[in-house]
């Protein structure tokens, strides 16, 4: 046997070498993800999903924060889409790959809460006696449970109606009121389409579930039972309420009339809008800065539409909040909290709103010179913020507190596409509702919620 082992020296050498090389590189790679930067500060790994102007501005905030103090170093890591990041958090929690602080969207609040993977920021607020009232209450609504703030809202947006005021003027069409009803919009849209000899499409609403949710929200109609999940585990959704039907019928009517165009995604929609081929559309206020760059003072902005004869209830915010993970040391969590405080300060939020179009959620931000100048130059940029302030937080405008809304959104978007393609409104929505109720039933069963 010894003879054999001797002759196999080469085997062990090669296998050993292979193992050492692979392990070596792994350790090398591992070391690069680890905590200590050259400066000896504590690394705070931060996951975010910001692109374009948002990413640029966020990175400069991080640079500023890292410069401002000596203990922590925030390391941003871009993670792609909001949709993907929820499962990434669920999947990496407790490993070295997971972040200390992360940005996650409004509708993920419930899942983050139920996971038990995060430290509610309320803990730090209470400890520091942080004045939370400076933060917009509607914005806080999406991440609040039992009056405790789970995560700090950071990039908050409102769904906003954008229109091309220049085109309206050109064709002599009366502008929209600040808070338009469905029929106000129909009027402008069809006039624009007719007067431009069908050269210009009147309106577009992306087949995007967030917009559907906001139709319900603005008319105080619930999406899921137990008050959109805010007071218990939702086990039924309703996509076929009167407002859901009405809004979708309205849009389908516009499609039939010809002045509505489905562009497929927001990129195309914006391109058409900027090139003057589309009169109005609804999207996140985060697009404002880009649209202003293109249209300047011709950009028109209004609140999100409400059904005729219904008082607008206000809409829930979009965007995302900052969560602190509980799988990191107290020092790291502390660093994350310091970073969050920095991000929601009035100065930071003012710059944020100017650079992106996300709304400054710090009420004091409007006093900052940055925003004052912006509002003076482009008064319409103030409107989404006004919309946010005009609403009183209640269950239907504080987001949907249900696990797995990502899947529901896919179903609703499918239904919207079908509706735009001319299928029966009620039936399309009913299919989506039934499908999601089934999903909900089995996820609740799987998660032990009955």
């Amino acid at each position, binding site marked *: 046997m010894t003879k054999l082992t001797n002759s196999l020296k080469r085997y062990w050498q090669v296998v050993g070498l292979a193992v050492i090389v*692979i392990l070596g*590189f792994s350790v090398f790679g591992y070391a690069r993800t680890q905590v200590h930067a050259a400066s000896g500060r504590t690394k705070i790994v931060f996951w975010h999903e910001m692109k374009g102007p*948002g990413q640029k501005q966020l990175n400069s905030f991080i640079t500023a924060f890292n410069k401002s103090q000596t203990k922590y170093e925030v390391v941003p*890591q871009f*993670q792609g889409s909001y949709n993907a990041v929820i499962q990434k958090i669920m999947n990496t929690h407790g490993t070295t790959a997971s972040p200390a602080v992360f940005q996650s969207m409004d509708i993920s609040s419930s899942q983050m809460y139920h996971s038990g993977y995060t430290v509610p920021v309320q803990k730090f607020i209470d400890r520091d006696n942080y004045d939370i009232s400076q933060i917009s209450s509607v914005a806080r609504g999406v991440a609040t449970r039992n009056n405790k703030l789970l995560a700090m809202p950071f990039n908050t947006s409102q769904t906003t109606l954008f229109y091309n005021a220049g085109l309206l003027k050109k064709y002599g069409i009366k502008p929209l009121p600040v808070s338009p009803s469905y029929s106000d919009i129909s009027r402008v849209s069809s006039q624009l389409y007719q007067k431009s000899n069908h050269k210009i499409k009147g309106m577009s609403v992306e087949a995007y579930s967030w917009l559907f949710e906001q139709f319900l929200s603005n008319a105080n109609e619930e999406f899921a039972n137990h008050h959109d999940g805010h007071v218990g585990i939702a086990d039924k959704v309703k996509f076929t309420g009167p407002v859901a039907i009405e809004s979708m019928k309205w849009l389908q009517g516009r499609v039939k009339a010809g002045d509505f165009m489905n562009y497929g995604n927001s*990129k195309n929609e914006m391109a058409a809008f900027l090139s003057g081929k589309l009169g109005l559309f609804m999207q996140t206020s*985060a*697009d404002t800065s880009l649209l202003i760059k293109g249209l300047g003072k011709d950009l028109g902005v209004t609140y999100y539409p409400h059904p005729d004869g219904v008082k607008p209830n206000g809409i829930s915010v979009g965007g995302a909040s900052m969560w602190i993970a509980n799988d990191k040391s107290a020092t790291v969590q502390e660093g994350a909290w310091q970073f969050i405080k920095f991000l929601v300060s009035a100065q930071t939020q003012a710059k944020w709103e100017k650079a992106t179009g996300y709304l400054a959620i710090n009420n004091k931000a409007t006093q900052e010179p940055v925003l004052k100048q912006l509002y003076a130059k482009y008064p319409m940029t103030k409107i989404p913020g006004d919309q946010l302030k005009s609403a009183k937080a209640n269950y239907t405008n504080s987001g949907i507190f249900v696990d797995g809304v990502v899947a529901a959104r896919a179903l609703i978007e499918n239904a919207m596409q079908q509706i735009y393609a001319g299928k029966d409104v009620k039936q399309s929505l009913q299919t989506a509702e039934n499908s999601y109720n089934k999903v909900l039933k089995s996820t609740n069963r799987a998660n032990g919620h009955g």
Partner: protein
Amino acid sequence: MENATMNRAMFKRRLGKTAKYTMLLILALIIIFPFVLGLWTSFLPSMDIAKGALWSSHLSLNNYVAAFTQTKILQYLLNSLIISTLVMFAHVFFCSLGAYAFVFLKFKYRDQLFYAVLATMMLPFEAEVIPNFVTVKCLGLLNHYSVMVIPFLTSAFGIFMLRQAFLQIPRDLKEAADVDGLNHWQFYWRVTLPYAKISLFTLAAYSFLGSWNQYLWPMLTTFSDHLRPVQDGLRQLQSEETFNDWDMIQASAAIVVIPTLIVLFIGQHYFKSGLNEGAVK
């Protein structure tokens, strides 16, 4: 009369030639156009691209400067290079060891084991990502180079391919080696590997490319730009919410594709003969 037939034949031949060249040019254009367009736009300012003004004369290398400075494209390339090289060597080594065992060793259940290995060729990796993700997570490999290396150290395909190659080695050689007192390791190292060099190269190229083109797995298992391989890195440049920075994206794509094209064109002959011999015989 003779002249007439001959002229007609010549005319026909010339016409045929023109038609052939036209066809070849059209096909070549279809193949090459996306490259050319991509390369061209990588020199244009983004404003011109956004307007669709592709006949711009404002050519510059600015986009490349931007790609190198503002994105982690070099880091991505380096990551891919390290990962793919590791996979390539390890893959060839472990597969050849396994293949050797199936050809030159006699042991119990050898055929059964071989069929079991063969059966795994039918199982797509894509269908197994869920448990595999959990496995690498439990092994603590997430967000490391090793997570993109270790699952690909061996493959049923590689073992199978090399087994076929080793089967071509004359049995006499093994018997002669037995007579000379070479043990299996020596025979593997000194005879089998040199003998099947071409197959080893083919497998090496195959596994390198396979690793280089990995997309889904790194997307699931890496979370930081320090470690992302190039395919996943390019994905990060693609915007989801706002306009694409086409200028920078095209420049990055060019940075990624140009080296591979150069390698491909230089390695033409090897590829052609290697693949033709290797792939279908």
